[in-house]
């Protein structure tokens, strides 16, 4: 093994391996690859084989991962890797111009290195900062609210200084009168930095001792009683999920916090993780106690390196105060929380895909049954909850289920974090009681309406995988039931506003492109259907459509819908079907645009 790994790095790696059960040390592979890539710049044959030996794997197992996760690269990249987000919200805000300017500026095409070895430009799928689009990341630093000029200035600055300056976190947006901030309450207070002192000062870590004084079943009952539903997308009642756990089989139980916020248009978890990590950690600890787990993993997106650092620091702070670790607060409860970094795969947001990824495999969602509550992480019963869901737990424990139920409407209790992106005056994140606001209020009151001179064309209510609402459908209350009745879903709370300048065909193409890129390739309909839809839309968009393509597009989407292992099938089928149905005229026009036969170039 010719690879020269510094002792320090190897020690770090050995430490990371201890985060995972001994017989499942393979799970450390993503961390290892991150560390090796940081050190070596790329992951070549030597790195692959070193990793495989280190973890007792076959090289193919490692190589499978490198080719699966787009954040890993097998060939060396430039010193500064510029990742421009190309997904829907950023596209609506003009990311194309930035990409074009950067390419011209550096004289390279995407995925090429500049001759001086300094830069590589890539397009990436959603950096979870849709409200401040267009965005790009240079190495680990995120640059928001870009314009072509700003982007060029950043490059110039890097060129002249030769280094990358750390970017400060943007200030927290002030609350709108119609909002009710619970989860965002702390961070909205001036001077709140998210450190443990701040959190304790604002009344944090009160729920933990209270919970440790209760019986786990009581906590589960309380959570069940509160009616809190999963905030990740599906909206499954959290308490019920906990009660499905197969306990008593002698196996450990795991809790996994799903911080892989990758649904385009969604960036709520970013705030919770970056500004108030202890709220989440307390939530995790309470939940662990409730479900009987002694280890929890926070699976955080690879694209949020800063968030991972914050979390690790927060965990250390909590450990220092014995909120975490052995015999927490001397109540006899042991619990560890580990941060696990993803490496850029939307599919890791699906709970079984996330578990597979966490186990160090390609994020292939598992067939159900068995559900994770029975056979999950490392073959053990596992609960997977969203960041926002878990962040709610301390508040429920502190204030009781009745308080929580008092907010929102029956069936959709509590507050909801909603992120708005697209051409509105004030894009960003808002927290309000569920069902108490309508979409119209959200857009026109909270967000201040559309930008000057624009008309509303439609709105995607819950991340790009949810069916679009037309402009005349926005008088719908923002809660699970009302949105379901309106033919769409609350999803992950990522609201994407489409104005009258938007080319629906292009937007559909953008969405299809995202899903084609993010399809894991495991099951047939999604693997083949997503790329087919993308190719077809690309052809239609470039004037080579045929009249039959409109129905064909719908039918292909329908053939994917509900036929797949995981919900990614629906995630691509729903928006495409909704766009085609609701804006059929635009598609028909695009397909008839010049009546040219499809040429070889677009075949």
């Amino acid at each position: 093994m010719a690879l020269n790994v510094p002792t320090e790095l190897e020690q770090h790696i050995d430490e990371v391996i201890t985060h995972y059960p001994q017989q499942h040390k393979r799970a450390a592979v993503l961390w290892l690859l991150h560390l090796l890539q940081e050190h070596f710049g790329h992951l070549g044959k030597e790195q692959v084989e070193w990793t495989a030996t280190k973890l007792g794997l076959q090289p193919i197992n490692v190589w499978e991962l490198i080719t699966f996760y787009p954040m890993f690269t097998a060939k060396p990249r430039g010193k500064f890797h510029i990742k421009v987000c190309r997904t829907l919200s950023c596209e609506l805000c003009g990311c194309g111009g930035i990409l074009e300017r950067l390419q011209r500026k550096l004289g390279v095409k995407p995925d090429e290195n500049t001759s001086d070895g300094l830069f590589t430009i890539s397009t990436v799928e959603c950096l979870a900062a849709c409200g401040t689009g267009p965005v790009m990341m240079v190495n680990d630093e995120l640059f928001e609210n870009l314009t072509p000029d700003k982007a060029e200035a950043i490059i110039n600055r890097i060129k002249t200084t030769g280094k990358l300056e750390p970017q400060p976190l943007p200030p927290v947006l002030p609350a709108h009168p119609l909002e009710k901030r619970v989860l965002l309450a702390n961070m909205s207070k001036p001077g709140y930095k998210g450190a443990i002192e701040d959190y304790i000062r604002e009344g944090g870590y009160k729920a933990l001792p209270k919970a440790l004084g209760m019986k786990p079943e009581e906590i589960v009952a309380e959570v069940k009683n509160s009616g809190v539903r999963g905030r990740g997308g599906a909206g499954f009642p959290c308490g019920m999920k906990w009660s499905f756990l197969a306990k008593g089989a002698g196996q450990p139980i795991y809790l996994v916090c799903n911080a892989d916020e990758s649904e385009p248009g969604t960036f709520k978890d970013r705030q919770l993780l970056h500004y108030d990590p202890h709220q989440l950690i307390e939530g995790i600890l309470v939940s662990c106690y409730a479900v009987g787990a002694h280890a929890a993993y926070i699976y955080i997106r690879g694209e949020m390196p800063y968030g991972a650092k914050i979390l690790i620091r927060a965990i250390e702070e909590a450990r220092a105060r014995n909120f975490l670790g052995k015999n927490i607060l001397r109540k006899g409860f042991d619990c560890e929380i580990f941060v696990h970094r993803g490496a850029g795969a939307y599919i890791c947001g699906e709970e079984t895909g996330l578990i597979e990824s966490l186990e160090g495999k390609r994020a292939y969602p598992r067939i159900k049954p068995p559900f994770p509550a029975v056979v999950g992480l490392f073959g053990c019963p596992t609960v997977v909850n969203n960041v926002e869901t878990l962040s709610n737990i301390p508040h429920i424990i502190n204030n009781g289920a009745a308080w929580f139920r008092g907010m929102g409407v029956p069936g959709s209790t509590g507050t909801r974090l909603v992120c708005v992106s697209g051409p509105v005056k004030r894009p960003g994140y808002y927290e309000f009681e569920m069902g108490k606001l309508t979409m119209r209020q959200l857009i026109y009151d909270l967000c201040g309406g559309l930008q000057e001179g624009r008309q509303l064309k439609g709105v995607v209510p819950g991340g790009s995988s949810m069916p679009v609402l037309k402009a005349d459908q926005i008088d719908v209350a923002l809660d699970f039931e009302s949105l379901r009745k309106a033919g769409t879903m609350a999803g992950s709370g990522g609201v994407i506003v489409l104005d009258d300048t938007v080319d629906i065909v292009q937007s559909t193409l953008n969405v299809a492109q995202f899903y084609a890129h993010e399809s894991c390739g495991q099951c047939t309909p999604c693997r083949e259907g997503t790329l087919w839809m993308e190719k077809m839309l690309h052809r239609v968009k470039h004037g080579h459509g045929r009249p039959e393509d409109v129905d064909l597009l719908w039918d292909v989407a329908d053939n994917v819908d509900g036929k797949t292992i995981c919900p990614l099938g629906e995630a691509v089928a729903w928006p495409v079907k909704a766009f085609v149905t609701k804006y059929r005229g635009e598609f028909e026009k695009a397909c008839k645009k010049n009546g040219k036969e499809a040429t070889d170039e677009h075949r």
Partner: protein
Amino acid sequence: MTMQVERPKLTIWERTYLPQILHGLWLTLKHIPQRKFTRQYPEEKPPLHGAYRGAPTLVKDPEGRVKCVSCQLCEFVCPPKAIRITPRARPEDVPDANVEKEPEDFVIDMLRCIYCGYCEEVCPEEAIFLKQDFAIAGYTREELRFHKEKLLELGGVQPDSIWKWKFKGAPPLDAPGAPKREGAGRKG
């Protein structure tokens, strides 16, 4: 059920056969000056229908490539078992190596061939055609076992729209350093 056929009653004159004979003689005589139908064969070829099924042949495409990939469907379908194919792999260094197989030899026994045209009908590559040759002759049996070269010579070139040669090569994925295809499906 038997049926009694009523024979025509003949007059004595008729029964001498002479009127019939004379009539016959007149008839044949009449034909002597009439227009002749004879075709002066070797010089004057018969106009064959487009679907005429003459000798089966192998064709090349306009770029001179043997179209046959030796799928052996013709061999399978041939009712008199006149076709024998020996397949082989194509060399890997040819530019269109994606078509991996070709006939090493392709024999049609013209003595066995019944010109039914099933081979042409079944051929998925449009590589075998029944051309208009119908005068197949030879001095020995072996001479009439047409091999690949002979069949290709007879078949000549036949343009087609079969896409099998069109292949945009993919970079071999033989090393971990190979480029990853990001940006699924983006053209270029």
